[in-house]
């Protein structure tokens, strides 16, 4: 009885601590942004919203419709095409580039799923595992890779030059932004679709064939309907990610191709906090709606589990049209996926006179000579690691506790799930803005004024970004644990706490390790909120340092990128080794 009471109280205590952490690191800061967006000089006002919603800069032709619906409707009837044409505005452009990115990701991802699901070749499993790698790659590192590959002096232009072909300039174009988004999201689409493809029961296809359907017809009638939900799931997720993309657009597109996210950053830099907050609110509402749609859709899908997938076709063999198409696709994969990373690595060790370690030496030497306002490379590395450890210390307890809760049945569980997963739908820039306004600028409580340093705020932001991944990795493992194991332990004399320690924790350790590795990788690569919160050179992280070098010092940027790649790869190996292979997020 005493132990039981202690356990119940312990649970309540943990719940209190977790809530406090979430409120301080997420809900309060985001609340501050909300308040900022509807107040000016101590007065409640919707003026900022009104001016944004009716400004063609933000909403394009739609702004006129919002500003004066009557006049807009009249014009729409008189000249429909002229009325809805012209600039899309910032918000419209954000959606437009997300749509293009989604199309590109599906176009690149579905053939990949076909290869992974239907062909057998050496290294298939490895490649399949590698599809999760982009997900943990720091965005700014990928941007560096794309600059190395597709930039003015990039690998692509060197190859074109050698072939005597005209150079192409992709930097600061929509194409490179969309391509970089596809780098991230096409593997995701491929993963989800390949899983569905393997889940198609071959006996269904055999039945259809025996009933008279041709191979093509059987694919259209049996396979395709089972793939479609997976493709749509991947596409929705891609759209959400691309809609909220920040570092890629900032580094590869610049302010000329700004999305909402980039423009919020721009407004923060210019200290226009009111319009930044209003934009952040508009963006968050849109992304919440999208995320909600995604989660609803995902939950409605059944995950097919099939013990015996169809036999795979050997990839190496006589040149059938299918094999030729696959090899063509693999060439594209090499350019888009392998190219940027390989280019970055090569660029980091080459200089004017061939192979050199000068870029890495720079990372070490700059340390001693740097002025206060300059980036200290070694400091950035140390900061990144310190912040990552700090955010692990926060995100793991939160994640473990929320996982334990989500495997139990109680009233209000759905609401709790939603509240704890909300941070996934709020962009890093918005969280950063909230932490900046709410904690770094200081707040008053109990008659005192509290301020939090940028470094602490960064740790908080990273923990918020990371803990959902701990939950996502741990919950399936906890959920699939046989409750009779714990019951057996208890009937043998173990208390509830003891059974948790002896039985449950050892059995979910792989999920915990994978979640921690995810959290570590997310923190190491986090750029969106860090760039807002890293107020001085003393709190710069590796990704921020890369962004500062980008443009002026590509060499050191690539070297720093390689250090990031190394750290991320170690995390990836841990995730791959221990991860439960969750899908989607």
């Amino acid at each position, binding site marked *: 009885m005493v132990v039981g009471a202690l356990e119940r109280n312990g649970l309540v205590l943990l719940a209190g601590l977790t809530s406090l952490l979430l409120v301080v690191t997420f809900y309060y800061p985001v609340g501050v942004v909300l308040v900022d967006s509807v107040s000016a000089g101590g007065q409640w006002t919707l003026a900022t919203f009104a001016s944004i919603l009716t400004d063609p800069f933000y909403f394009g032709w739609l702004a006129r419709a919002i500003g004066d619906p009557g006049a807009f409707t009249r014009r729409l009837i008189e000249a429909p095409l002229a009325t809805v044409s012209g600039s899309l505005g910032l918000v419209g452009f954000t959606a437009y580039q997300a749509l293009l990115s989604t199309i590109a990701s599906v176009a690149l991802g579905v053939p990949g799923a076909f290869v992974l699901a239907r062909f057998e070749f050496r290294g298939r499993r490895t490649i399949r595992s590698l599809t999760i790698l982009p997900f943990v790659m720091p965005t700014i590192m990928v941007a560096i890779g794309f600059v190395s590959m597709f930039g003015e002096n990039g690998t692509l232009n060197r190859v074109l030059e050698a072939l005597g072909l005209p150079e192409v300039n992709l930097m600061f174009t929509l194409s490179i932004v969309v391509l970089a988004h596809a780098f991230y999201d096409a593997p995701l689409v491929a993963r989800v679709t390949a899983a569905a493809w393997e889940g198609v029961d071959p006996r269904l296809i055999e039945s259809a064939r025996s009933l008279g359907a041709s191979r093509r017809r059987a694919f259209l009638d049996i396979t395709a309907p089972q793939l479609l939900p997976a493709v749509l799931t991947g596409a929705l997720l891609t759209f959400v990610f691309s809609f909220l993309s920040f570092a890629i657009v900032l580094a590869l597109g610049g302010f000329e191709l700004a999305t909402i996210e980039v423009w919020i950053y721009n407004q923060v830099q210019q200290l226009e906090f009111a319009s930044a907050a209003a934009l952040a609110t508009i963006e968050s509402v849109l992304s919440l709606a999208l995320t909600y749609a995604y989660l609803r859709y995902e939950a409605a899908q059944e995950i097919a589990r099939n013990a015996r997938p169809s036999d795979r076709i050997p990839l190496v063999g006589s040149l059938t049209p299918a094999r030729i198409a696959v090899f063509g696709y693999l060439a594209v994969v090499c350019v888009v996926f392998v190219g940027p990373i390989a280019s970055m690595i090569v660029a980091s060790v080459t200089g004017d006179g061939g192979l050199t370690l000068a870029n890495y030496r720079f990372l070490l030497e700059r340390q001693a000579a740097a002025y206060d306002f300059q980036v200290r490379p070694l400091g950035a590395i140390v900061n990144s690691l310190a912040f990552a450890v700090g955010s692990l210390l926060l995100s793991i307890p939160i994640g473990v506790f929320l996982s334990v809760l989500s495997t139990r049945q109680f009233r209000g569980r759905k609401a709790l799930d939603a509240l704890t997963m909300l941070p996934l739908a709020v962009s890093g820039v918005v969280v950063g803005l909230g932490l900046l306004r709410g904690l770094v600028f200081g707040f008053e409580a109990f008659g005192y004024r509290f301020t939090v340093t940028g470094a602490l705020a960064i740790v908080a932001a990273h923990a918020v970004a990371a803990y959902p991944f701990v939950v996502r990795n741990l919950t399936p493992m906890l959920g699939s644990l*046989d409750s009779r*194991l714990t*019951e057996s332990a*208890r*009937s*043998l004399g*173990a208390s509830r706490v003891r059974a948790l320690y002896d*039985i449950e924790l*050892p*059995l979910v350790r792989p999920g915990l390790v994978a979640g921690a590795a995810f959290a570590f990788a997310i923190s190491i690569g986090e750029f969106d909120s860090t760039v807002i919160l890293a107020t001085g050179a003393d709190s710069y992280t590796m990704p921020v340092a890369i962004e500062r070098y980008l443009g002026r010092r590509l060499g050191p940027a690539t070297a720093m990128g390689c250090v990031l790649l190394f750290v991320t790869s170690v995390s990836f190996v841990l995730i791959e080794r221990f991860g439960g292979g969750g899908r989607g997020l």
Partner: protein
Amino acid sequence: MTTIDVEDLRVEYGETTALNGVSLAVEEGDFFTLVGPSGCGKTTTLRVLAGFEAPTSGRVLFDGEDVRGTPPEERGVGVVFQNYALFPHMSVAENVGYGLRFAAPPEGTSKRVRIDELLELVDLGGMGERDPEELSGGQQQRVALARALAPGPRLLMLDEPMSALDARLRERLRVQVKELQSELGVTTVYVTHDQEEALAISDQVAVMRAGRIEQVGTPRDVYHYPATRFAAEFVGDNNLFEGRATNGPGSSSPSNRSGSGEETEGASASVAVDGAETVFEVPTAATASAGEPVTFCVRPERLRVSGGKNRFRAQVASTEFLGDVTRVRLEWNDRSIVLRTSERELPTGTVELGFDPADVRVLNGPSDSKHDRGDRAEEGMESVSTRDE
């Protein structure tokens, strides 16, 4: 050793009632089996006894002491689950020794010795260093049993421990379990849906249905004297007859061919079976007035070809050769009758069957009116029915 008393146990989950007033008494050292179809509440009863679930109302007493609020780890109940629930991250020896982390091994033996002793006991000597997953299903089951017994529990509970094993292994293991249990003398509660297993292994059997206990008794009692229609049909094959009394006890019916030569002990009644023009003589404890409904049953092995006092002619429909016996299905007045006989006496075509009043068990009627409960009125059932095992 320990006795168990269960008093009016109720378990409700929201709208559904899992246990609807279960009362039991298990004697010291007894092998007590709860048997019934899935969802009848047998596993729930076991979980309440082990302390995994709290009853909505009712009491559980071990040795006369109420165990309400006692957590599972303090109840001293060894549990073996259907899937064995062996700890996958521990070796066989670590599994068996887990309970010894919390209780000193009995009689001053060391932990190591105790583990070896138990592994020997279940014929798994020398297997201690293996991982559970390296073992066969039957071996895993015995590890689970050894693990449950290691701390010297006051009670042993087994929840369908054999159902994942193949039939032959199941029969061998149940002998072993039974021998082990009587050797150790530990009071045991066993849950199974397999009525044959229940009869073979138990000292006492409780037949459960829909959260209630239908009958408690020795396997012989439950088989030969089923208390309810459900018990009659669930345990073993049975032939059920429903009809109405045509006259008072003691008189014989006109259609009774063998006449009233052999009088049975006690009173009897003539019963006209519904839908048939046949009247059978069955024993009754009390006077039956004409028109009263009577349900009775006769075991398939008690039916005789061309013998017995009550006779009727039936048509052979199919035969199943079972090895030691043959099960014959016959048709009689649009009903199915089942007969167990040896292969040598295999009937064909139309045969005359018969049974003696002594082999009749009246389930519902003047002798047994307390079972005439409204909740068992399963209308539309065949008045004569048989069950597959």
